[in-house]
């Protein structure tokens, strides 16, 4: 892993301060952070909890690819992409992306690019548990 990329897929709780500490840098003027949190509702139905599973080695490769593309596309210094797997409750954190840059626009653009791309390409799946049963998100037969 290069010095300016931190990738993690873990069953431990994600820590905002870890991502922040990784990307902060004396040459940086701005840090953009996106934190995904578990909502209590999906389409009006109460969510009890979520279960995230991953194809872990491939997920790490795809997250690394997103980080490298972000560094290539935008003028940024460092990027951290951390994803949690396993059972999560309301307000728990499935994902944190942190990006530092000399100028803030690049940090915002890169952070948004990274989360948008993660949601399209990284092999991680979310099962929502409701009172009435459970559903694999995005998987309609």
């Amino acid at each position: 892993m290069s010095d300016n990329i931190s990738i993690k897929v873990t069953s431990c709780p994600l820590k905002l301060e870890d991502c922040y500490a990784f990307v902060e840098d004396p040459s940086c003027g701005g840090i953009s952070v996106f934190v995904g949190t578990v909502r209590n509702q999906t389409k009006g139905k109460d969510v009890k909890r979520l279960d995230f599973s991953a194809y872990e080695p491939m997920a790490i490769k795809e997250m690394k690819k997103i980080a490298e593309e972000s560094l290539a596309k935008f003028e940024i210094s460092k990027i951290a992409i951390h994803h949690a797997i396993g059972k999560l409750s309301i307000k728990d954190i499935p994902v944190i992306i942190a990006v530092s840059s000399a100028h803030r626009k690049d940090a915002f653009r890169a952070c948004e690019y990274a989360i948008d791309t993660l949601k399209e390409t990284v092999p991680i799946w979310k099962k929502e548990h409701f009172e009435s049963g459970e559903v694999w998100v995005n998987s309609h037969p």
Partner: protein
Amino acid sequence: MNITVLAFGILSDLLENDSIQLTLEKQMSVSDFKQYLIKNFSKLNGYSNFSIAINEAYASDDILLNENDVVALIPPVSGG
């Protein structure tokens, strides 16, 4: 030709399995292999909305499978 098939998300539920060893009689492209699965695994119940990754990288329809490949069935992802 021997391959390992890994199933994730809804596909591991449908197949009631995370990992299957398969012997294919001939070499196939990714798109042929998807048709083969849908035809031969009734548990899939016609579910065809998935991508294929070979050895931990997305593979397009025209790529050919090779001996000992690890072939992952990737339903629409929903991380983040």
